[in-house]
């Protein structure tokens, strides 16, 4: 049996056992070590199984993950979501679709700090959906808006998923954060356009809400100070040359704890819960990283990525057709795999393929991240959709998917813009010279 065939078989077996509920980290490690043994013998396969957990245990670059997760866990407990929603509502007040637009704005900023789409969607389904329903919004559209806006955190820096991609693809995290900045806020802008389009096509879904007075708007805007402070430490400190990404994550987590304590939004019990949540989440993600590294050693050994890249070049497919194939791959995987696993499993194959046709590894990071946001709201297993449905059981899942459709279109518009204008992602890292 050729190595390429073993590689293809390994991928199929992996997908099969993932479908049978085997934990993702275990499935990756199992297929990785068995595949490696099929090509190079059990002795070397066991050497990989033994060494990878040790190598990753002391990977300094990975320490950014628990620190950003901690910042998010504290922000979730710090009552910041409601304040951001009020501030964003003040900004959009008076415009048709103001509440949905406020949801997008607040989710974009809160999600960036929180770092978890599921936590953002869960938080805003309590904050924004009741408010929208109270003002007569179509429940499916209100839920769809929160489900979709909740995914913005994946793209808007600082994002844990981007840190995972940086690790898997061996790319600069500072460059990736800079690259995600414009596409992230552009996607938020496209979501606002989607809301206006729905308001125009189906006015009954998005009724006009009385505007706020100037004094109310200003009062609401003051609530943004926490966010500004966190952004300053988590992001701008990197580009001012003050911190490395890991240091920025530590400073931001520390500042988030100080804010939560000084504003009495969180006590010692809350801090302990946040610490435990960040440690357990990191451990779960870490085990997937271990499995993915073992699996990627196997995939590299099969020369599958190199052979596919060579085949694509020799067949002289157009770059666009290759990108469409990659897009289809991520779309299909995103419908049933979580975003961390999607990135860790695919990057060893897609990175050489996409860089082989002339695109940049940083650009691919942004592209893949956008595709992951699509996976989070795509049927049959759009995670944020299920989170919202669990809290609003009277809105059927199928209706929520219908509500996400305008935002799904916006996602694909961004993908198209990224393919047509790679500078959307690559201009800022070049200007910042990170």
């Amino acid at each position, binding site marked *: 049996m050729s190595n390429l065939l073993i590689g293809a078989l390994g991928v199929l077996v992996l997908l099969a*056992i*993932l*479908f*049978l*509920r*085997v*934990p*993702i*980290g*275990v*499935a990756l*490690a*199992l297929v990785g*070590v068995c595949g490696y043994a099929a090509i190079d013998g059990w002795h070397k396969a*066991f*050497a990989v*199984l*033994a*060494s990878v*957990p*040790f190598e990753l*245990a*002391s*990977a*300094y670059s*990975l*320490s950014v993950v*628990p*620190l950003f997760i*901690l910042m998010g866990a504290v922000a979730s407990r710090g009552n910041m979501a409601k304040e951001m929603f009020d501030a964003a509502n003040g900004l959009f007040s008076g415009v048709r679709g103001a509440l949905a637009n406020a949801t997008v704005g607040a989710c974009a900023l809160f999600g960036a700090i929180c770092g978890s789409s599921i936590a953002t969607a869960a938080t805003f389904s309590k904050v924004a959906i009741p408010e929208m329903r109270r003002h007569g919004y179509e429940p499916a559209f209100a839920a769809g808006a929160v489900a979709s806006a909740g995914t913005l955190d994946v793209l808007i820096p600082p994002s844990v998923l981007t840190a995972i991609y940086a690790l898997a693809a061996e790319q600069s995290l500072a460059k990736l954060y800079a690259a995600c900045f414009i596409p992230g806020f552009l996607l938020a802008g496209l979501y606002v356009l989607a809301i206006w389009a729905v308001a125009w096509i189906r006015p009954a879904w998005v009724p006009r809400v009385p505007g706020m007075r100037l004094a109310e708007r200003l009062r609401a805007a003051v609530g943004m100070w926490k966010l500004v402070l966190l952004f300053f430490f988590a992001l701008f400190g990197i580009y001012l040359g*003050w*911190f490395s990404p*890991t*240091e920025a994550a*530590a*400073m931001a*987590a*520390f500042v988030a704890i100080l804010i939560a304590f000084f504003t009495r939004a969180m006590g010692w019990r809350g801090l302990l819960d946040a610490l435990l949540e960040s*440690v*357990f989440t*990191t*451990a*779960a*993600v*870490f*085990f*997937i990283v271990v499995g993915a590294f073992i699996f990627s050693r196997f995939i590299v050994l099969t020369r599958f990525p190199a052979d596919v890249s060579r085949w694509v070049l020799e067949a002289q497919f157009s770059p666009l057709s290759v990108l469409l194939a990659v897009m289809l791959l991520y779309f299909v995987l995103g419908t*049933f*795999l*979580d975003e*961390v*696993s999607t990135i860790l499993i695919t990057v060893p194959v897609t990175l050489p393929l996409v860089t082989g046709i002339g695109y940049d590894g940083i650009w691919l990071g942004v592209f893949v991240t956008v595709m992951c946001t699509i996976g989070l709201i795509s049927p*049959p*297993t759009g995670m944020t959709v299920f989170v919202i449905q669990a809290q609003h059981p009277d809105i059927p899942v199928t209706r929520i998917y219908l509500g996400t459709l305008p935002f799904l279109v916006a996602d694909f518009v961004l993908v198209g813009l990224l393919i047509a204008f790679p500078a959307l992602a690559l201009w800022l890292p070049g200007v910042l010279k990170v």
Partner: protein
Amino acid sequence: MMLLTVADVTLRALFNTPIHGTFELIELGLACSVYIALPAVFLRDEHLVVDAIDYMVRRRVVRLLDLVAACLSLAVLTAMVLVMVPLARDMSEMGDVTADLSIPKLLYWVPVLLGVAASALCTLIYIARWRKGA
């Protein structure tokens, strides 16, 4: 990890005296925190799994698949422990230390080994609980 980094950044910014060996201490903290928490992830079954099949089959089948998944997890974790022990022993005999603080490399390996071994044990407990119908 967070406090150490904050102290390092603050001291570096204010007094130009960063803490010596911060990188190595943070790496040690990462190894300890992640691998010590890992057994709890296995015990509480908090893994990331693809649950698409949950909507297609009966609850009993899902439970059976959970058992198969736990057995596979146990096999992988046990294999990991068995192959990691000799590697850790070699590292101990070589006596490698880190560059800045001369921390024995073995100290980084102990939490990894213990964490994976405890995870195997926790998976075994999970399987025993499954048999009791928990």
